[in-house]
């Protein structure tokens, strides 16, 4: 028997495989394919205070080993969530994490206050890749001051586990990890999508209605892995690795580089069972390598070097 569990403070996860926000809906979309209670946790689709219609079609473009999306946080808002979705996710048998988003710090605060009261949501993931309207649309997560502020304000009103999800579109992601750790984040997750673009050469137009969009999938894995390694070596809080994880071997790269857990994103589109397969693969690997606790492999490459 191997121990696959990990913890963020006193919040225990039965294993290190979570699903990434925006790629797993509210979980129930995958009911026909897997038993979500097998997973360490699921991060729900990004929620905002008010309902959002998101961006115009086309919102998606395929790229080499990846995809661009410009969904723009289409969701029905927190009221609808509380009334109609929360009752459905209550009994999932795994940790349900809400991913929160806003255009103003006040949005984040209001959301965090509301979610603080939802008994079965033990953690939020603060998505700071959203454009900060007061900063002319520059993402909270690409400006140290904004990142600090939003984390501080949310921390002040939110008493459960706070995971801050970092943007990779920065010169030095370690600075951001340190700042949010200082402000009381219990964990950081990374990476969110890389800002990218695609052009439809036949029609001589941008492939996305928004011209630029977020790149995800295996293409981003090397960048994600580098950032996770840098951050894991710089902070004390647990790091959750995200970015292009398609197989158990991809997940292990992140764990060996220092991530305590991983989130599976785009992979769920190609194989809705990816997350559970990855979990099985990790368990087998640990057994085969002769370890008994996943903690023994977290950050292993630093020790052997």
């Amino acid at each position, binding site marked *: 028997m191997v121990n696959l569990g990990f913890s963020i403070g006193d919040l225990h996860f039965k294993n290190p495989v979570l699903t990434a926000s925006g*790629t797993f809906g509210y979980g129930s979309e995958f009911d*026909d394919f897997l038993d979500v209670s097998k997973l360490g946790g699921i991060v729900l689709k990004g929620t905002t205070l008010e309902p959002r219609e998101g961006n115009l079609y*086309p*919102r998606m473009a395929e790229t*080499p080993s990846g*995809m661009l999306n410009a969904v723009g946080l289409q969701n029905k808002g927190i009221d609808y969530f509380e009334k109609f979705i929360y009752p459905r996710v209550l009994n999932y048998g795994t940790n349900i994490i809400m991913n929160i988003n806003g255009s103003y710090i006040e949005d984040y605060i209001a959301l965090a206050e509301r979610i603080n009261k939802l008994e079965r949501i033990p953690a939020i993931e603060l998505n700071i890749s959203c454009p900060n309207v007061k900063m002319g649309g520059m993402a909270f997560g690409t400006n140290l001051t904004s990142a600090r502020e939003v984390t501080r304000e949310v921390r002040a009103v939110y008493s459960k586990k706070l995971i801050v999800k970092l943007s990779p579109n920065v010169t030095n992601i370690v600075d951001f990890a340190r700042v949010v750790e200082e402000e009381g984040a219990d964990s950081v997750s990374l990476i969110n999508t890389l800002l990218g673009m695609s052009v439809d050469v036949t029609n001589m137009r941008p492939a996305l209605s928004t011209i630029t969009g977020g790149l995800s999938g295996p293409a981003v894995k090397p960048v994600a892995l580098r950032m996770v390694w840098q951050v894991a070596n710089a902070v004390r809080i647990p790091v959750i690795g995200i970015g292009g994880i398609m197989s158990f071997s991809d997940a292990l790269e992140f764990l060996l580089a220092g991530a305590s857990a991983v989130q599976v994103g785009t992979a769920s*589109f190609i194989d*809705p*069972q990816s997350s559970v397969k990855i979990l099985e693969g990790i368990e087998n690997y640990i057994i085969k390598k002769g370890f008994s606790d996943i903690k023994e492999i977290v950050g292993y490459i630093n020790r052997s070097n």
Partner: protein
Amino acid sequence: MAKRIEDLKVIGNKHLNNDSFILELSGNTKIPDFKPGQFAQVRVDGSPDTFLRRPISIHDVDYGKNAFKILIQIAGMGTKTLSKLGNGDILNLIYPLGNSFSLPSLNEQVLLVGGGCGIAPLLFLGRYLKANGFLPDILLGFRNNARIIEFEEYHTIGNVFITTEDGSMGEKGYVTSHTVLTARQYNRIYCCGPYTMMKAIAAYSKNKNIICEVSLENLMACGIGACMCCIVDTVKGNLCTCIDGPVFNVNDLKW
């Protein structure tokens, strides 16, 4: 109906012309009760350019044989790779996905309109309608007679009318200009094909107060309502083509 992910076996690959082919698929488990208009998310193996699955409609179903067909037109590397599959090859599908065409009311006069490879879902729809006691008319548009595909199959379902852009078969022009649209009265039209064609048929239907359903072919990532990439702007807000569609009543679309 539960969605499933399954390895199916290719038991036929019939090439209709340079760029259209029909794959026949069968599996070890009983095929599901398909509804007309549904589709599958097809994984394309061995194509480095194809990262995501490709949505493909259910074209024809043979419950006796426990097999079904998909009709594909080569559009890029994904469909090209699929065209090379041979008997015994494995194809991984997530299916059945999406809503379906609604059943007409008793005594309704029904017309199916298809253009190019947009005819794919109409064969199964036609068979379904016939099995339910309807005798639909079928209006198919092609570029020219070399592009005509599966035309014989439709004769087993109802009256078939053809247009070609160059007049090499049937009436010359687009489906929307076919004389049957003025000669006969329809209560309901099901349409699948290029957007311009569907929009023209939608306008025609709205104008004549005919119930009209179209099957959209938006870009998809997940196919199961998880990613919100495949949206279409409707009177009810942005809906997902993959779960709220692909079939929409044109009155719901902002066309």
